[in-house]
């Protein structure tokens, strides 16, 4: 835990975590990369499986997306690392975070295995009458790994650690919570994990706004 605390206490990361705008902007960039470059990963995998873009040779699909996927991957990982390290204490006990990291290391293993077998000699794949089994396997596994990353990434926000839920750091914000009816408590913030300090206050303000609005109507 102390390592996690040391990481997130780095001044720059503390500022980042507490900033009202930079944090969500980085998160939105992370997601935009998922959309743009994740889409390319999906299309490459589906081409290898013989499902999408079947009019195009495999070599062409692999070649044309390669550079963009690499650029996207770098941006995505940089943004993700910022998000995770600034909240290191919350992420370190989170099993979904570690599951996501495992899936990410599988990306490297997948590349190490299938690059020489599939991706580096796509011309050979074009020549064979049917898509070879190893290419389909590469596509299927990649699809599985990336869906795993996506799912775990999303679930990170839903895991509540018993310790951090009651830690003094979150108490002041909790004390400000306006009493709410059960219906409002149901509301979830999928991004709650990433929210601390000023944003907690903001959220409470909004709840209050919701409440007072309802009372006046």
């Amino acid at each position, binding site marked *: 835990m102390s390592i996690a605390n040391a990481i997130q206490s780095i001044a720059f990361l503390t500022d980042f975590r507490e900033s009202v705008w930079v944090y969500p902007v980085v998160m*939105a960039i992370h997601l*935009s990369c998922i959309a743009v470059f994740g889409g390319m990963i999906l299309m490459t995998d589906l081409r290898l499986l013989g499902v999408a873009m079947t009019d195009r040779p495999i070599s062409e699909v692999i070649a044309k997306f390669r*550079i963009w996927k690499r650029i996207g991957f770098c941006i995505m990982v940089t943004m993700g690392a910022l998000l995770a390290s600034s909240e290191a204490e919350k992420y370190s006990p989170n099993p979904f975070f570690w599951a996501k990291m495992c899936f990410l290391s599988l990306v490297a293993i997948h590349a190490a295995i299938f690059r020489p077998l599939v991706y580096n000699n796509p011309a050979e794949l074009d020549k064979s009458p049917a898509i070879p089994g190893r290419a389909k396997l590469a596509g299927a596994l990649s699809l599985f790994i990336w869906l795993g990353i996506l799912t775990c990434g*999303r679930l990170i926000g839903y895991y509540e650690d018993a310790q951090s839920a009651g830690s003094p750091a979150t108490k002041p914000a909790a004390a400000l919570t306006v009493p709410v009816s059960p219906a409002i408590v149901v*509301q979830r913030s999928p991004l709650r994990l990433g929210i601390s300090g000023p944003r907690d206050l903001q959220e409470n303000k909004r709840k209050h706004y919701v409440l007072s609005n309802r009372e006046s109507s």
Partner: protein
Amino acid sequence: MFLAIENPLNSSELIFPTLECMHILGFAFSVGTIAIVDFRLLGLGMRHQTVGEVASDLAPWTLIGLALMLTSGPLLFSSDPDMYYLNWVFDLKMVLLLLAIVFHYTIHRRATMPGTSALRSKVVASISIALWVGVIFGGIFLAFI
């Protein structure tokens, strides 16, 4: 408020995140494939094929993505309508989404046909990317406002 209590979506902790994953997968397909066409319009890579070829290859996947996105989205909304309804970022997101979809099937589609000038292609691609990224930013920011 009643929806928040009785909507079966709220009866299980896993339904909401599952829908969110579908939503993200949906826009990876739709925005991802549209962005590929935009990159081609901008003249970035994929020069072996015409824009029209790239666009028609990807069109079915854009549609699959949109379908996923537009079914999971309203379901997510239904879990807590008040929170979205009272959120101005949500309104902004919906306006951008509508613009993005209309733009995609009108001006954007026309720009993928032969005879489009290079300048026009680039302007259309930039607007398209800006609109879709705007929608994604809206989705994130509505949880922070």
